[in-house]
């Protein structure tokens, strides 16, 4: 799994997430997001087009960060989920609590 900053515009940080987000790698996501939060970033859009796999450990990491930024009046939104990842989100009801967009442009329009 790899998470890389793409750009910062105003208060929004856009990053790309790639590879597998599982029980071994999910903490890398949490650590990186928490590190950005300590730099006073509160809102994030994550491009998931290269994210091939997510398990409950990954969902847990996303939920933790989403709660944390909501508590700071920020937001965590995702874009361009692959079909298998989208399925896991929908079955878990995460599509109702995390804003998901078809692509980065749609996410930026919010």
């Amino acid at each position, binding site marked *: 799994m790899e998470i890389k900053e793409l750009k910062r515009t105003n208060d929004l940080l856009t990053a790309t997430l790639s590879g597998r987000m*599982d029980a071994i790698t999910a903490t890398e996501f949490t650590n990186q997001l928490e590190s950005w939060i300590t730099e006073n970033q509160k809102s994030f859009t994550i491009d998931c087009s290269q994210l091939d*796999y997510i*398990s*409950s450990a990954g969902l847990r990491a996303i939920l933790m960060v989403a709660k944390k930024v909501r*508590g700071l009046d920020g937001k965590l939104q995702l874009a361009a989920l692959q079909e298998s990842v989208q399925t896991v989100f929908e079955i*878990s009801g995460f599509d109702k*609590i995390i804003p998901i967009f078809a692509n980065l442009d749609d996410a930026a329009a919010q």
Partner: protein
Amino acid sequence: MPPPSNKRKPIALNLLEMPAKLENLPRFMTFVCEQARQFDFTDKRTLEIELVLEEALVNVIEYAYPAELPGRLILHLEGKADGKLHLEIRDRGIAFNPLERAAPDLEAELMERPIGGLGIFLMKEFTDGLSWHRENDENCLSIIFEPRHAD
């Protein structure tokens, strides 16, 4: 890629036994996924099998044994002639039936949504048979996958 005539050939009983440690997770995953691909499972179904397997294994790794004293985790894998894949995961840890865990509240609003509890729910969603029993001081979790899961 094996010739098509070999694709549905039942594979012999396979067994992998290693310490129940997170660092061994990829070895267990690779072991099962290679077999699943040989056995005519689609890439989509193989991903679902991976997910179920990870949830089941992590459950044992995190809860069955004291952290400082990880015991054995035993994985049996058997491909049946009817195309189904049977998995059995056994450990000698504390008696625990994961299937009795309450389902998470999928309707809860973000801030009320509990962290965790989703792994077992996802296992139930993506399997075609899931049962637990205690036998000879072992937890035995049996999982059945059909090549295409009914949505």
